[in-house]
């Protein structure tokens, strides 16, 4: 077998494309995380509501997203609306909607898990002091639950960043899509995809070190 000649140089000449891709990845992940927190709050509220119908709806939402693959959501959001309602979504909108609805389901579970992990005694104590249940939630439960939610929240956010690579299947210009373009221009898939893997690794490793640092600080308080 002939020795393969590595050549990262020809791939790296396309660095502006990679940078653009990195920006695309960061942009859709950030949007999906922000929208996901809002959506997750709503779904969690539904799941803990005193109305049965809302609880069922919230549970169905979460179970649907937990039990179907992300790629199905991406394709559904991108291809179904134009046919059904004549609504055309661009790859960016479709990817953000798919990611955000999915992350809403996962964040909802993080929020619910955190709130329900706080013992009943805390609620009773607050009520005994004459606090309304809204006050108790805001002043007693949430501050305690928030600390416990940090780790699973970070973990879910990492999953979102990784899942954002699926947007490449809708031809949205995030990292993977840009990489695919570079691979076909340069005929250097080995170098391109190795570099891509490295970029993702560094990005996520850096973020996880930061998150760990923040978590440790939070636990000390």
């Amino acid at each position, binding site marked *: 077998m002939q020795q393969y000649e590595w050549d990262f140089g020809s791939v790296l000449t396309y660095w502006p494309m990679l940078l653009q891709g990195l920006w695309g990845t960061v942009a859709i992940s950030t949007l999906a995380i922000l929208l996901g927190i809002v959506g997750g709050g709503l779904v969690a509220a539904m799941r803990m509501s005193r109305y049965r119908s809302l609880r069922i709806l919230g549970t169905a939402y979460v179970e649907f997203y937990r039990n179907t693959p992300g790629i199905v959501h991406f394709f559904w959001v991108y291809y*179904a609306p134009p046919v059904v309602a004549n609504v055309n979504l661009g790859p960016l909108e479709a990817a953000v909607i798919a990611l955000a609805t999915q992350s809403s389901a996962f964040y909802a579970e993080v929020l619910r898990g955190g709130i329900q992990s706080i013992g009943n005694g805390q609620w009773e104590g607050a009520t005994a002091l004459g606090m309304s249940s809204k006050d108790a939630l805001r002043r007693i439960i949430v501050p305690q639950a928030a600390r416990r939610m940090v780790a699973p929240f970070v973990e879910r956010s990492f999953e979102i960043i990784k899942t954002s690579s699926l947007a490449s299947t809708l031809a949205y210009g995030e990292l993977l899509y840009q990489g695919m373009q570079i691979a076909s221009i340069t005929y250097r898939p080995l170098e391109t995809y190795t570099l891509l893997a490295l970029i993702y*690794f560094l990005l996520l490793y850096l973020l996880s070190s930061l998150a760990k640092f923040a978590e440790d600080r939070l636990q000390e308080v």
Partner: protein
Amino acid sequence: MGYQFDFSMVIKILPVLWRGVIVTLELWAACLAIGLILGFFIALMRVSPAAPLRFLGRAFVEIFRNIPALIQLIWFFYAFPILIGAQLTPFTAAVLGISLNTAAFSAEIYRSGIQSIERGQWEGAMAIGMSRVATFRRVILPQVFRRMLPAFTNRAVEVAKVTSLASVLSVHELMYQGRLLSSTYYRPLEILTTVGIVYLVMIYPMTWTSAALERRMRRKA
């Protein structure tokens, strides 16, 4: 307006989707089996007394956990063959990528399981004259497996979802068949919704089992 949902389409595509389901199940079983076995050895490396082995195990886990699964699949299909000088079929590339990914995640499950067994168990077994290996095999492992069962079921759910990414490499699994059908008939709503429901039907029993196991475990504890 007034889109007509075409139920006859759903019936028409079921036989083709069924062929996809078979491939999805094959992929799932192969990746889960290889991943769980390999993951065990990686976990052994991670708890080994030898520092270089620990480092290698840790590197493997961090690499596969911090890079999106889709990138891993694409790397094994488009880049890896150049490195080894032999072409891989899409199915083999998918099995390689998903198995190694599964191995990294299950290694962490084994590791936390092994480390969750109290020191006293080791000391007790040693005190009655068992060797390190015998202690591990007869005392520690049986407890680890029981404790880790919900986590493994969760992993099985994740692997089932990840197999859908193999559609990007044109492995003829469920998602691939769905994409093909929806572009052939131009009925993405019916077809992609059906694909989603088929996944739900396949995966939900596993999620349910995992939750039931967790509940039972909590009652026992």
